[in-house]
């Protein structure tokens, strides 16, 4: 399998007042297409910072990020936005659906950004909603959905444009344990059946158990890598 993600010597330093804080101190790793990669570690270990950089939401202080053969760290801001729309799906801890749009419209949104024609849009949105098992709720707005249902819609939204990579920051942290298990199950199934590449951060031991590999972080560095072809 080819590399979907290649991160080399990534650093990120913030300035808080006059103090420079190192959030990432040189992280390197690769992820192959179809991987289910967990990034674990205590709060403040740099998980979210790493995901933000990989997702092009923030720019690294140094280092390189290559996604599906494209150098993300060299792109100007608008190009970075375009790359996010084309190649990266996001799943957030707080679901982050757009409240004024229905489930269907939320999932449709990335396709509208990608200017996908209407007929194709409809079939892809319906397929994505079916995949996450929420087709019957497509006309509901987020406020009318449970947390688990909202996260499913968010996963459908992340998948719908067929991204190279889905980034999920603590996707189960805001869910009760049963719902969390269901969401983990869903992500795992999408990974094994559809070959969707997931990279996610988590505290949740249950996700780590089903992950192909676990990148364990501490103080902005990768401590060790556990799992199959580590």
């Amino acid at each position, binding site marked *: 399998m080819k590399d979907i993600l290649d991160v080399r010597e990534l650093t990120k330093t913030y300035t808080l007042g006059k103090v420079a804080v190192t959030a990432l101190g040189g992280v390197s790793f690769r992820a192959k297409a179809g991987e289910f990669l967990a990034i674990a570690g205590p709060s403040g270990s740099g998980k979210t910072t790493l995901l933000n950089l990989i997702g092009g939401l923030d720019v690294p202080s140094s280092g390189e990020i290559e996604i599906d053969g494209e150098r993300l760290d060299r792109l100007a801001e608008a190009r970075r936005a375009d790359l996010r*729309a084309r190649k990266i799906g996001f799943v957030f801890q707080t679901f982050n659906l757009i409240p004024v749009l229905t489930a269907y419209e939320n999932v449709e949104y990335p396709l509208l950004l990608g200017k996908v024609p209407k007929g194709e849009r409809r079939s892809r949105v319906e397929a994505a909603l079916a995949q996450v098992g929420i087709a019957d709720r497509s006309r509901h707005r987020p406020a009318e959905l449970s947390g688990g249902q909202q996260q499913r819609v968010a996963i459908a939204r992340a998948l719908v444009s067929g991204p190279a990579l889905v980034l999920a920051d603590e996707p189960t942290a805001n869910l009760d344990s049963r719902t969390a298990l269901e969401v983990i199950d869903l992500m795992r199934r999408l990974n094994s059946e559809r070959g969707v590449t997931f990279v996610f951060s988590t505290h949740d031991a249950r996700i780590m158990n089903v992950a192909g590999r676990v990148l364990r972080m501490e103080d902005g560095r990768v401590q060790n890598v556990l799992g199959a072809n580590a």
Partner: protein
Amino acid sequence: MGIQLKLALRNIFRNRRRTAITLAAMAFGASSIILFGGFVNFIFISVRESTIRSQVGHIQLYRKGFLDKGSVAPNDYMIANFDEIRALAKGIEHVKDVIPRLGFSGLVSTGETTTSFVGSGGNPEGEEGLSSFTRIVEGKALSSSDPRGVTLGLGMARGLGVKEGDSLTLLATTKDGGINALAVKVRGIWESGEKAYDDRFLKAPIREVQRLLDNEGEVQSIVLLLDSTENTGFVRDRLAALIRDRGFDLEIKTWEDLALRYHQVRDLFSNIFNVMALIVSFIVVLGIANTMTMSIFERTREIGTVMALGTRRSGVISMFLLEGIVLGVLGGILGAVVGIVIAKAVSFVGIPMPPPPGSTQGFIAKILIVPAVLAKAFRLSLIAAILSSLYPAWRASRLNITEALRHV
């Protein structure tokens, strides 16, 4: 419907109470502009019509040079062929009346009191249409059956202490420089509302004035009254062609050239209107900017989300600008409706106005519904909405995505 418009509409109606307040502010602004603009236009038209009907008529004809030099040597610039011109002018569509004018001045005396006057000689019957803004308060209007009967302004009549039927003597300089006197009777006393006019002016049948000035058959100017002010341009063009074809030595002035006061009033009120519209727009801008800023603060995480999903910063700007535009359109329409309803209601009742400066009679004002003012109010609503969403939209687009996503 595009996703942008869908988002704009749904976000606008998300917080109904706040939107209602914002729309109310915009409607208030737009309708104030419509009401004030409609009122100002009523004043414009009143002043225009009163100036035309009481003094200048729609169009005046003079011998070339009269306007420049006529005040010093009026007798050199007389029109001798009035009857011919009247016949020709009457043939033009929209012309209602063709009135000769012969201005003169001199002294008027009761025998005990003497004062100076400015007078005009007119065609008794034709002068009627032109004087529709002067009101006879005592006696009757000029009549050709009473060649020696003159009418005076109320102020002059009071100054001289005369009433209907009293005798007066008019003294004036003739064409050749001699002094001539004419014995007349007060036939009527009128009031125009213009104090300066009422205190100094008298009217006399033109033939008697011609006798007094010893210039039989000659007039100084010819005043045309039309069926409607809107036809002035049409008639002016016809007259100009006629004058050219016949080779008459005449020049044409329309009420726009002559009604200086109308232009002053118009400029003054236009400025007041513009200042008022500016202030109202400014308040509306502040109101919407506040709503927009609050709305953006509340939606910080959503903005972070759509940017994470790949919406460019320019897309965020257009999202909020579109929201502003939709608000502007809604507020503008609402304002126009409210403005029209109030204008109709107020006009139905009428606004009693005190006498304007230099005038002695009050009047009942209305609020006209003027398409140009409606368009202006709508345009200002839209501009205000766009202006006031510019900065919030820009701020939204500058949000740091990761911080916005963390925003609670």
